[in-house]
């Protein structure tokens, strides 16, 4: 069962195509990341799924409800964090949350009060509950907006740049909440972000978008491997000599061997780092080489992302 399914979802603004035939499936309880540069179509996709704007073509279902024929059911099933916190500035944090919880249908006062308290305490905002929102910092408003999006325990969350502009501590709090919601409440989360750290730490799968289309979908590990090609094993040595070099080159798993003189290390390209690493280390030791360190080098998701976007933009 999928929480979100889109098929050929397209949005045009006059002659500009913001999202171009996007198809994706997000499973129940999955944290799915939408990555891409500014203008890639991430926010437009999210706005269509939240029924804020109508698609030009294609279809989508959220929590099993069609976004065009059942927008009210869709809204009742999702919590949304938009790019702007948009709170009642003259009301207190508690008054804001109480209003939105009621608006979302959380009518039992005790349950509402418990839920709001738990979320405000999670973000260390309980002590400021009676302060007007106008006195809050940007980060505090962002946290309140996340509380609002989650206060009615929606099964699906759409979060647009939840950690944008936040300090590292606040960003971590928000990531922790997303992880907790995913694990404890089995919430499905669609996360739009340029913060690759968020995607790497939270998402089971990510989609990289550019110019309205999907470039690639997969887990962060799969993307790294697909984009960067074969892994490289870096073997740091006390000294590189011809005997050690020959022994490593002789190993059938070593596809390419180079010497890194600055690091005093051998750089060995292999197909499968897991099986090749012990064999290569054994070869070096048998050739009387003195091993100081062994690292399997993979590009970070950020490097993979930048490489991919650069290649895409060249086309």
């Amino acid at each position, binding site marked *: 069962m999928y929480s979100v399914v889109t098929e050929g979802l397209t949005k045009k603004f006059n002659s500009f195509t913001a999202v171009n035939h996007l198809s994706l499936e997000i499973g129940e309880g999955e944290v799915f990341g939408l990555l891409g540069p500014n203008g890639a179509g991430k926010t437009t996709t999210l706005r269509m799924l939240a029924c*804020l704007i109508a698609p030009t073509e294609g279809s989508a279902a959220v929590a099993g409800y069609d976004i065009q024929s059942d927008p009210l059911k869709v*809204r009742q099933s999702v919590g*949304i964090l*938009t790019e702007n916190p*948009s709170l009642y500035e003259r009301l207190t944090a508690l008054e804001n949350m109480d209003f*939105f919880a009621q*608006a979302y249908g959380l009518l039992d006062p005790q349950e509402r009060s418990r839920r709001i308290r738990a979320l405000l305490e999670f973000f260390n905002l309980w002590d400021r509950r009676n302060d007007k929102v106008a006195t809050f910092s940007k980060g505090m408003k962002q946290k309140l907006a996340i509380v609002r999006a989650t206060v009615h325990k929606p099964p699906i969350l759409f979060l647009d740049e939840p950690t944008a502009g936040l300090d590292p501590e606040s960003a971590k709090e928000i990531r922790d909440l997303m992880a907790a919601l995913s694990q404890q409440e089995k919430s499905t989360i669609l996360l739009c972000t340029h913060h690759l750290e968020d995607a790497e730490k939270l998402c089971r799968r990510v989609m990289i978008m550019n110019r309205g289309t999907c470039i690639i979908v997969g887990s962060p590990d799969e993307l790294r491997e697909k984009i960067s090609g074969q892994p490289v094993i870096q073997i740091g040595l006390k000294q590189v000599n011809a005997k050690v070099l020959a022994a490593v080159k002789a190993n059938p798993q070593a596809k390419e061997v180079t010497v890194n003189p600055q690091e005093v290390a051998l750089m060995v390209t292999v197909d499968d780092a897991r099986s090749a690493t012990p064999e290569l280390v054994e070869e070096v030791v048998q050739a009387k080489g003195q091993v100081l360190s062994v690292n399997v080098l993979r590009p970070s998701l950020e490097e993979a992302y930048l490489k991919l976007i650069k290649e895409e933009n060249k086309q």
Partner: protein
Amino acid sequence: MGSGRRILSDFKVFSRGYLRNKFGLFFGLIFPVILILIFGAIFSGNSSSTIDIYTQNQDTGPFESPQLDIASQFLQALNSSSTIRVITVETSNFTNYLAEHSSSDGIIIPANFSANYLAASPINITVYGNPTSSTNGIIVGTVSAVSNLFNLQRFNGEAVIGFTQSTIGFENPQYVDLLIPGLIGFSILVSPMFSLVNISSEYKKNKLFKQLSLTPITKMEWLASKILWYIVLTLASFLLMVAVGVVVFGAHVNLTLGLLPFLIIGPTLFASLGMLVGTVTKNPETAGVIGNIVTFPMMFLAGTFFPISIMPDYLQNIAHVLPLFYIVEGLNNVMVYGNITGALIDIAIVSVITVIIFAAAVKLFKWRED
């Protein structure tokens, strides 16, 4: 020299910013022009129309010759003043007649006017009027001038013809009693109108409407809650105004259930109109300017502070298309004249306008954006 350049440079940047601020432009340049146009049109002597005044002539004769009908000559003299036009009515209860015609102005020429004038016996004309109304001053001034003329012609200025001023609707009227309907009309207009113009454009700008659209609240429900609030606020404002009038000025306020429809439908109308202005404009500044352009002329032309009878005919025609005119007229009908038929017509017109404006506001107001 350096200081002069700095002043000039700051002058340039400030004036540029000022001219780009639509509010500044409105209140600095457009608002004074609106005021001069409105007040100029209302009070311009050349364009003022003649005031119609109901008159009961109780001196019906018989007279041996038309020259002895002094009462008719007096009325002709009033007509020839060009400030008032006498409409003679025959009724047994003159004050009821005035109330039924929603008029506070009237003249009674007493019986035996002609005989008393010829016999140099004192004559007392009754002039009805609303002391807060500027028409009253014109009528009293005209009656006084014509009386003086008649006294001068025959008695060397001795005050044989005199007059007493009276008011219908209240036994001991005070200025504040008669000012209240206009002030209630003002309150019904201003608060819902300005607030909804501001709220609807600000919420649009701050994306609060977008947030609300994500909840199951509908735009109809949202607008209904705002209207409910402005009805409550108008009722509170009305009670406060009455309390201050009674406690501080000893006002006599005619509290009747007939006021309620105006206190409910009035805020509904102007909250919807404010919402409509806020919806069709692109940003809060433009909304504020359009809101002011709609509100200020209505404030002065609908009979809130000046009776429309003192205005030229074309302004009176304009007043009749302003919804506030029917609210103020209806409040006067209920509170001053006790003219229920007139009030029912007013509330019917206001209701129809309200339904149209409300429907337009709901139709044009969008949660979603494309």
